């Protein structure tokens, strides 16, 4: 049996493939519906939807600079989306990516500070050290939430919200008081040129951090569906009781999900600092980082917590972010409008899921009625 043959064969008989194709189709329809409703809102608000959308997509997908800028916006939210998705697969509602991303950015900034004293780090070695520091700090923050959950039963929503604020003010303090750049105190010490993530296309914003994000996404997919640890993680998420029965320790899965998610968010933060022109630093008030963690949740939702589905989802969110600048500049539509359109699309994307639930409920109910009728008949006969 040849490989191509078996792939075709799989497509035909594997219901998971049907499911995936179906879901993708639904997402496209939801997208169209969302954009239509968004258009109505724009129109009612006195803007020209055609013009707005033209600039939105023209400048985000249809020219090289726009496309690279879309991908660079997609990079951090793909990673923070993975944080949420891995958690969700383990039965968690981990909204700590925001804080873990700050910590990742702090890791890269620490590298920049170290490089001031150790010139050797102004090199690809420094890149590696910065990424490792970012991943470690992101994972470290996540580990606190994991341990609170496993040993003290603290719900992760509560702990991650609080840790997000702790990380925010910690990084805020360090940026403004300790690690600021004497030449421009509104940013932290920038990463030296030799340690920066290389740009994939000169003159654009797209750096190698995009490749890191894609690599991590593929790795996550492989881990969840092709490795025993991922199998155990998903089993724990779907049924902790059954996991225990199968000799799996659900707490280990929770730990793994948090730490892996922390690494993803940490890499996202480090990648922003080490790979994103022009600053290569944390800016005052963390303004170049804020909300990248929360946007990841959106990406995970659109991508149905599936790593591969999240790649197009992240590019879509990236395009909205990248295009909104042109939409504002050329069509005069305020940035907030983009957020509204984004919201409408996300709600539209949730509709198929709700329809499936209703369908399932009605099917179930019909089945029960039929069985009940049979039982009643049998009892009258007997």
């Amino acid at each position, binding site marked *: 049996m040849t490989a191509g043959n078996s792939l075709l064969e799989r497509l035909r008989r594997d219901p998971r493939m049907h499911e995936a194709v179906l879901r993708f189709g639904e997402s496209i329809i939801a997208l169209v519906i969302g954009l239509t409703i968004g258009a109505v809102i724009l129109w009612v608000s006195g803007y020209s939807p055609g013009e707005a959308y033209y600039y939105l997509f023209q400048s985000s997908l249809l020219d090289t600079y726009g496309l690279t800028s879309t991908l660079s916006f997609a990079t951090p939210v793909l990673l923070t989306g993975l944080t949420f998705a891995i958690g969700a697969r383990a039965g968690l509602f981990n909204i700590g990516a925001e804080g873990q991303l700050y910590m990742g950015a702090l890791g890269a900034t620490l590298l920049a500070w170290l490089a001031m004293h150790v010139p050797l780090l102004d090199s690809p070695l420094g890149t590696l050290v910065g990424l490792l520091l970012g991943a470690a700090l992101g994972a470290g923050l996540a580990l606190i939430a994991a341990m609170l959950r496993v040993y003290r039963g603290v719900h992760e929503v509560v702990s991650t919200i609080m840790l997000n604020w702790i990380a925010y003010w910690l990084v805020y303090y360090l940026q403004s008081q300790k690690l600021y750049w004497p030449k421009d105190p509104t940013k932290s010490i920038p990463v030296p040129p030799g340690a920066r993530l290389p740009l994939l296309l000169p003159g654009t914003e797209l750096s190698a951090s995009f490749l890191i994000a894609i690599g991590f996404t593929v790795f996550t997919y492989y881990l969840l569906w092709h490795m025993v640890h991922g199998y155990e993680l998903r089993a724990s998420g779907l049924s902790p009781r059954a996991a225990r*029965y199968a000799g799996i320790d659900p707490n280990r899965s929770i730990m793994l999900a948090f730490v892996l998610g922390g690494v993803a968010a940490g890499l996202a933060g480090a990648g922003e600092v080490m790979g994103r022109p022009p600053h290569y630093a944390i800016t005052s008030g963390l303004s170049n980082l804020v909300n990248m963690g929360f946007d990841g949740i959106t990406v995970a939702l659109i991508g149905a917590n599936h790593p591969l589905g999240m790649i197009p989802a992240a590019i879509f969110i990236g395009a909205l972010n990248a295009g909104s600048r042109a939409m504002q500049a050329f069509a005069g539509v305020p940035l907030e409008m983009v957020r509204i359109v984004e919201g409408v699309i996300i709600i539209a994307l949730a509709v198929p899921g709700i329809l499936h639930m209703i369908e399932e409920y009605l099917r179930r109910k019909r089945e029960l009625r039929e069985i009940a009728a049979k039982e009643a008949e049998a009892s009258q006969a007997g």
Partner: protein
Amino acid sequence: MAAPETGREPVVSMRDIVKIYPDGTVALRGVNLDIYPGEVLGLLGENGAGKTTLMKILAGFLKPTSGYILLRGRRVVWHSAAEALRHGIGMVHQHLSLVPVFTAYENIILGLPSRMLAGARQRIEKLMEETGLEVPLDEVVELLSFGEQQRVEILRMLFRNVDVLILDEPTTNLTPNETETLFNAIRKLKQQGKSIVFITHKLREVLEITDRIVVMRRGRVVGELPRAMADPRLLARMMVGREVLMRVEKPPAKPGEVVLRVENLWVKRDIGTWGVRGVSFEIRAGEIFGIAGVEGNGQAELVEAITGLRRVERGKIYFLGRDVTNLGPAELYRMGMAHVPEDRRSTGLIMDMNVVENSILGLHRWERFLRNKWGMLNWAAAEEHAKELVKKYEIAAPGLYSPVKYLSGGNQQKLLLGREISKNPKLIVAAQPTRGLDVAATEYVRRMLVALRNQGHAVLLVSSDTDEVMQLSDRIAVMYRGRFVVVTRPEEVTEEKLGLYMGGIEQA
């Protein structure tokens, strides 16, 4: 029929009640029941017979899938338990529903409009005096004993002037004195013309307190008789019943060496009280050891302790001669233990995973399903394995990659059983293996267990279905309150006698 006082109209009639839970479990298969004013009705049956479900429907906690209720001759439909309560039907559950940090008084009046609260305290005190159900009204409920909490709940119902009071296994956690107080109160309420439904599986109580007894089995009413005509033997026989299933052919046992030895085992329940209180036994290769008993007498805790899911507090478990006390399930499976758990939907299988994924659950770290030491799964091997199971056990599934929630209960159980057998185990622990299955699937599972025994596997069967234990076992133990009250052979005991042991009436 056995209407107690002819000429009186029933206060409540239930007609053709069928209840099927959303997961497909058939709880009630067409039940008719009348409740008369001023009577104590005993609702008797084994676990899973449908007693509680029937009464939850009457009290508005559940909606029937079909059938209807007549209240004083008029058809009613409950949209909530509160509505049923307003119409005079109240239920006290086995697990009480009080606000722990409120006082007894606050709990009793909770939810009533203020216009009904004038003189409430005096009226409650009067109620307590009349019924003998005394509670300290100003004490916080969580500081009260279980018996007192139960009284609060009953007073709550009486204060709302219920005509029909349903008590679900009310004596389970009571001391003998508290039980006596409760029974006295029931007698007084009866004199006031109230109807009391007393749900129980305890023969002694049903004979002591009720006027009329309705026996249920497997979702049906199988008998109804006035107390005067009832005796423990008759009731035990009705409760346990005889199934119309075919007998499973069983050649004589050829017991081999000891596979499992349990010595003076003590295990706690979730709530911290003792579930298993000093149990010892042995199982040999090639025999089925059956544990009968009403559920909740420690069987579940015993099974979990043996299969590594619950901590052993005292005592030892030896499996294949090795001390495995408090060893985890993964190691036990590797040594050759298999476990068909009581609840296949939430424990034995993962409903949202597909057939292939479920076919390796618990075996997923076995070498044959791994490609290397890094933990890459060999899905090709897993698919092959699932295919074999589907073929060998005739599992009807929409596809290897459909979630198992789309399989029928019988096919789920076949998949589970097949997977466990594929471990080629020395011991199979099967808890309630035929619960909720249809006749064909039940027979299939039973034959399978006997076949395993014939091939020299040891089988530990735990079932509250007495008939099943009698048919399949080579040796039988009856568990009551955490202990074995008797260990015997099926040919040396009658089902009736087993029923009496299970009800705690006969001591060995």
